[in-house]
């Protein structure tokens, strides 16, 4: 792993993750559960919870990197567009910095929907466990 390395992974924001999120965290705000409410607020359907994307980031860090001795240290995300049920998302993360002194990598990442539009972007810092 070195600066400039780029990783991509495809996620589907489907029923399983949506139901699992609601079952686990009980966030049934009408924006996420009531299509009429969401449409009245200008969205085409219920909007998936933004923090579902953070779950995808967790999967990326834990399962997609070439090493498993990793731990998220900091993470920030900005949401640009809503994500709807069954949206296919392409996640891209690039290593933008490496701090050998503390075994820490910095990434910039973004999610694009199938229309190629960025729905979210952010930064991530992970450490390699000794």
């Amino acid at each position, binding site marked *: 792993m070195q600066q400039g390395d780029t990783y991509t992974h495809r996620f589907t924001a489907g029923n399983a993750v949506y139901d699992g999120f609601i079952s686990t965290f009980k966030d049934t705000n009408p924006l996420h559960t009531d299509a009429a409410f969401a449409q009245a607020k200008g969205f085409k359907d219920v909007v998936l919870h933004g923090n579902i994307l953070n779950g995808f980031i967790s999967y990326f860090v834990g399962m997609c990197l070439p090493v498993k001795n990793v731990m998220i*240290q900091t993470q920030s995300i900005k949401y640009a567009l809503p994500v709807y049920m069954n949206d296919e998302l392409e996640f891209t993360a690039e290593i933008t*910095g490496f*701090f*050998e*002194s*503390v*075994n820490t990598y910095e990434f910039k990442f973004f999610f694009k929907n199938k229309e190629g539009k960025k729905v979210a972007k952010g930064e991530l*810092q992970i*450490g390699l466990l000794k």
Partner: protein
Amino acid sequence: MAADTIAQVNKIFIDVLDNEDIVLDPTTSAKDIDEWDSLNHIQLIVAIEKHFKIRFNSSEINGWKNVGEMCAAIEKRLEQ
């Protein structure tokens, strides 16, 4: 040690550790600041390296006993 170096490091500590009351001196070490734990130590080093646009290696930072040694290492690296 230049006063400006420790002043800049002091600002980084205040920001990273979210504690406006921190006043560093050369003898300050992790045992003197509650928030200076192992995870925050990583954030401090990353912030210092980014702020001063320098890089250390692990053996260097593991040798620091206090803020004075940290600042001396920063200044030495800036001179190189």
